[in-house]
């Protein structure tokens, strides 16, 4: 599978042209100097690349030394410790808590949907681009309609992926259908891409008889073994060490596939984030970790979540190759995930992607985010930094999409969704037996007894129970 890049040039200078456009809310002063007596602290400690990034393969860019040694003679002397040789220095120097510059963000499209000159990216065909755009728009419509359905009391709960459509769809487009996905919960677009129908989404949200999850979990807890998409669970980050195990299994079976797992910025504070990355690295498992840094964990802003330069810098701490990408740039996300996947599979190693984005919607239907953030902040991201609009511009500029296509898609999708919801609502409920099945592979005696007891109770007092659940 040959990957070729558009004309390469110094990416850093290209990015610098566009940095002025970004309004990062996380304000930090990186110019401070730590105060130490009698020291010649190197002010050139950094983690980012400086050299030109011309490359024609997926080889890793050589990172400059983490610490510049000031004494050349000392540098030649090495000490042996478990873990290998390490040079020593008689100059006492602390690595600063942060580098002088934040890790830059890889992007390909500017805010007007135009490819930044001399960008590295994997080209996307018309067919693929149109499909990606359609799915992003479909996800938007789906989110809107299901959200409204919850507001109307038709489903009990919902959470949207508004603002994160590019991450959802472009990452899915970059994967193979054999790659096993372990989601957090804000990645239904990946399932949508893989062919989960609007009806199937609706069935899970209504917990009706057609729901593959058999009505056991809250809405949005989708799962589909047919689509290699592990069932969503509410606990945060638990999927990360599991992804390491999945990746390891694929490696042992010599499959041309990897595990791909998602997490939010908040989830990276969980112990399972540390566990997952460390295990994947030590076991050399093909796992792509995609962190959706959308700025908020319910009401907790990232400034209250960590003191590091986001998540990308944590990868190196585990020996994991990492990249920060503009999560609202579908082309950048596509290229990054595609490359990461290739690395993971061909080199049998984990890769970390931090996709920068913004959670435009509330955390869920149980949240009103205007209580903890400015309404115009939300508006700004919704209107001016909209990933769907941005990609649409590029697709339209190429002559692959029109206003007519747009209105047809949106009205058709809307119609389909309303039909799906109506049908799902009317669909038969799960039979009562499904309360007791699948706790174990075979129902144990205590559950057989409890099932009998409950059946008797329901027959005796049907008015105590919701109707429609056949015994």
């Amino acid at each position, binding site marked *: 599978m040959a990957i070729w890049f558009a004309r390469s040039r110094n990416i850093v200078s290209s990015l610098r042209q566009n940095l002025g456009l970004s309004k990062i809310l996380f304000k930090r002063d990186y110019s401070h100097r730590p105060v130490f007596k009698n020291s010649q602290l190197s002010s050139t400690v950094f983690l980012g690349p400086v050299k030109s990034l011309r490359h024609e393969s997926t080889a890793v860019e050589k990172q400059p030394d983490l610490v510049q040694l000031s004494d050349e003679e000392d540098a030649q002397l090495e000490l042996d410790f478990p873990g290998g040789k390490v040079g020593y220095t008689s100059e006492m120097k602390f690595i600063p808590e942060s580098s002088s510059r934040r890790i830059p963000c890889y992007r390909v499209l500017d805010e007007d949907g135009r490819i930044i000159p001399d960008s590295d990216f994997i080209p996307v065909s018309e067919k693929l681009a149109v499909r990606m755009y359609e799915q992003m728009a479909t996800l938007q419509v789906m989110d809107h309609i299901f959200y409204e359905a919850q507001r109307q009391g038709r489903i009990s709960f919902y959470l949207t992926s508004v603002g994160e459509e590019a991450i959802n769809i472009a990452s899915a487009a970059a994967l193979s259908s054999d790659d096993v996905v372990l989601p957090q919960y804000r990645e239904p677009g990946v399932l949508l891409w893989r062919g989960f129908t609007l009806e199937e989404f609706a069935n899970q949200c209504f917990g009706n008889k057609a729901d593959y999850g058999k009505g056991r979990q809250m809405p949005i807890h989708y799962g589909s073994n047919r689509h290699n998409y592990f069932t969503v669970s509410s606990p945060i980050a638990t999927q990360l060490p599991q992804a390491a*195990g999945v990746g390891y299994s694929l490696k*042992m079976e010599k499959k041309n596939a990897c595990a791909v797992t998602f997490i939010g910025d908040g989830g990276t504070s969980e112990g399972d984030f540390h566990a997952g990355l460390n295990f994947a690295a030590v076991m050399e498992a093909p796992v792509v970790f995609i962190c959706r840094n959308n700025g908020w964990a319910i009401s907790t802003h990232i400034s209250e979540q960590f003191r590091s330069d986001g998540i990308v810098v944590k990868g190196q701490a585990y020996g994991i190759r990492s990249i920060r990408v503009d999560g609202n740039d579908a082309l950048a996300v596509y290229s990054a995930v595609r490359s990461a996947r290739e690395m993971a599979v061909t080199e049998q190693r984990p890769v970390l992607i931090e996709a920068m984005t913004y959670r435009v919607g509330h955390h869920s239907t149980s949240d009103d985010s205007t209580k903890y953030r400015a309404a115009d902040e939300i508006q700004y991201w919704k209107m001016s930094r909209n990933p769907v609009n941005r990609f649409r511009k590029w697709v339209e500029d190429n002559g692959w999409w029109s206003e007519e296509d747009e209105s047809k898609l949106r009205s058709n999708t809307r119609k389909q969704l309303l039909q799906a919801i109506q049908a799902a609502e009317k669909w038969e409920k799960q039979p009562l037996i499904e309360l007791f099945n699948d706790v174990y592979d075979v129902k144990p005696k205590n559950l057989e007894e409890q099932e009998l007891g409950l059946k008797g109770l329901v027959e005796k007092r049907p008015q105590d129970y919701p109707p429609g659940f056949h015994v």
Partner: protein
Amino acid sequence: MAALLGRLCRKLVFPGTTHGAKRLSTSACESDTVKSLNLYSAINQALHIALETDPRSYVFGEDVGFGGVFRCTTGLAERFGKNRVFNTPLCEQGIVGFGIGLAAMGNRAIVEIQFADYIYPAFDQIVNEAAKFRYRSGNQFNCGGLTIRAPYGAVGHGGHYHSQSPEAFFCHVPGIKVVIPRSPREAKGLLLSCIRDPNPVVFFEPKWLYRQAVEEVPEHDYMIPLSEAEVIKEGNDITLVGWGAQLTIMEQACLDAEKEGISCELIDLKTLLPWDKETVEASVKKTGRLLISHEAPVTGGFGAEISATILERCFLKLEAPVSRVCGLDTPFPLVFEPFYMPTKNKILDAIKSTVNY
């Protein structure tokens, strides 16, 4: 202290083997060889057989590569390779999470937690993930291939963090199984059943018995069924229920009670979740008295579940309240261990007071 240890460190041999041999679940030919093994060797044998019979099975955890801190995994890495038998980083939540991922892909993940005292970081993965994996997915996914092994229980000098019996926490979790063997022969057969059971299982091994218990263990591949309790000693006056290392203490109490004319029926529960209520019920309906003994603290211990259930089922047959002889409601103490433990004499006293109620 040395004298104390000397008293505690008697070799425990299990004379009931021929009786037990009749209870083997798989048909064993008369000429099958047996070998005198201690608990860790029996477990080791089970692991060798498990890895031999399923090429998609893995054994991992802290320090398992060189054989493990209790030697349960000796020889596995050399025989099956480091891809299948390996050390993990020191991170229980990672160990179990990784195991769930492997199991979800159809492999058998036999995971070791170095001491049951350290299983708690993995509690979220066990309770919220492993136990619910099949149910929440509508049976599209499962991690039935997961088996978590952990040494548990008093060892004479373990203190707070090398002596715990945490089984009660796990018995409260629908979706997993909890199994505790009493002896080497039982351990091998039960462990193989756990590994092959299509549900995630927590297998607690009484570390006290790793070296102390020696028994004739058949060398072939055999399994002892789960959720089937065993009456290891028949009697008429009182039913005693226990598991793991505690059974040897209870057995001694029964022998002493017999000298005073009390006939005791001793039951090894083996599987605590889902537990075999029928066997215990039948026994208590016969004897009219029940005594439960476990090392774990009495309050909220698994004995409470057995007591409540038997009360529901056998109330009119009971001649006396259900007695529980258990650990005290304190963290497991070091120098006070002999006072904390449910000893033979505490059990004997309880047998007598129950019979004389």
